[in-house]
């Protein structure tokens, strides 16, 4: 346990009960603990990344009740009673989500560091707008940065996944 996570004797703790990737999760947190640290360091789900740390790049995107948030700047207690989805919870019964399939098929990543955030943000978009125009997609996704600049392939991947998902429903 890192120094930052060690408990003071008089530390205030908040019991947090929430759904993590479909399963009930109960954990005590201190007020200052960030969702990103709790998910990565205490719960061991390292798909979510710390990068810019100022809500600009989207590498720490998680879905809370289906909507994207920056886990780097979200206090962990805020997920009380809510549902959190990380990239680890996207595949069901060992079957990849159509977005994951499409990113593989269309080469929607290079180094892969932005990919969990990209895919989760794209899921939030397609859940509310299954048939986005390219402009709508760019507007929604402009806060997710790919430092390798692989945007063309990312857009192709999301559009292909959208088409596949519309066909399946």
């Amino acid at each position, binding site marked *: 346990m890192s120094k*930052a996570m060690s408990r*003071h004797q008089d*530390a*205030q703790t*908040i019991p947090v009960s929430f759904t993590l990737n479909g399963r009930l999760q109960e954990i005590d947190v*201190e*007020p*200052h*603990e*960030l969702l990103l640290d709790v998910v990565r360091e205490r719960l061991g789900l390292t798909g979510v990344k710390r990068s810019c*740390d*100022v*809500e*600009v790049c*989207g590498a720490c*995107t998680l879905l809370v009740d289906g*909507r*994207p*948030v*920056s886990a780097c*700047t*979200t*206090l962990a*207690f805020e997920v009380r009673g809510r549902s959190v989805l990380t990239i680890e919870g996207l595949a069901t019964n060992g079957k990849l989500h159509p977005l994951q399939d499409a990113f593989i098929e269309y080469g929607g990543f290079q180094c892969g560091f932005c990919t969990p955030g990209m895919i989760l*943000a794209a899921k*939030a978009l397609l859940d509310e707008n299954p048939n986005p125009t390219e402009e709508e997609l760019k*507007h*929604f996704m*402009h*806060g997710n940065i790919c430092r390798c600049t692989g945007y063309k392939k990312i857009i192709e991947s999301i559009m292909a996944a959208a088409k596949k998902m519309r066909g399946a429903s």
Partner: protein
Amino acid sequence: MLRRFRLEEPESVREVSELLGRFGESAKVYAGGTELLLAMKEGLVQYERLINIKRVSGLDEVKLENGAIKIGALCTHHQLELSPVLRQNLPALVKLEENVANVRVRQVGTLGGNLCFAEPHADPGTFLMAVGATLIAEKSASKREIAAERFFVDAYETCLEADEVLTGIKVPVPAPRSGVAYLKFGYLERPSVGVAVALTLNGGGKSVGDIKIAVGCAGPAPKRVEEAEALLKGKSTDEATQNLPKAGSVAGAAAQAISDLHGSQEYKEHIVGVLLKRAFQSALSQC
């Protein structure tokens, strides 16, 4: 890394105000946290306590009340993007909200938090000045309304008293034959220049009746620019259009632009003029 703090979770405005009164500068109201937590993570500010205001009910609605649009201070930018009341009565604010920062910031950041933090590179303050909004500030046992143009004192500083809580924003429903436009310029997430124009036409649509102009982002705090308004008010639309370059340079000078990473003072002053011209034409076209 955030330092330890204690969390208070009051359930009424009175309790929030009392906590602020009791703990003074060692406590801060916390809503979406999109700006406050960044400053705390950087170590620029430190608080022993955060007062989570989100458990106070009734502060997250948009409704029509006595000819005004009343926006609860806890409404998130995303809620405002979707609000049917705003879409119907103040679509220019919806457009502004759709373009605040990014989708994650809009999801949790609140309008009240945005105003109270008074970060200079923010959109809503400038807009609210042009549409003649008032801000509702409450204490344990009192309540007052503050004109948007008097709310901002300096960068990161408002006229709220230590134990006052911003609970809502009131915007008059725009009159018939009126238009509102907010335009901004910038790259990355934060705007470096913002200009808002709200106007009403008189004389069968031939002259500019009431007009309000505000500039923001370029300097320490958003400002209403009455000297620029005076060059356009009461003029025929043609004459007003001819006066736009002059109004633009007056507004540019009033913006108190500073030279920084986003551009030089002269550059920002020029952009104010360009945006003022476009915002005027956009507002005019809505009338």
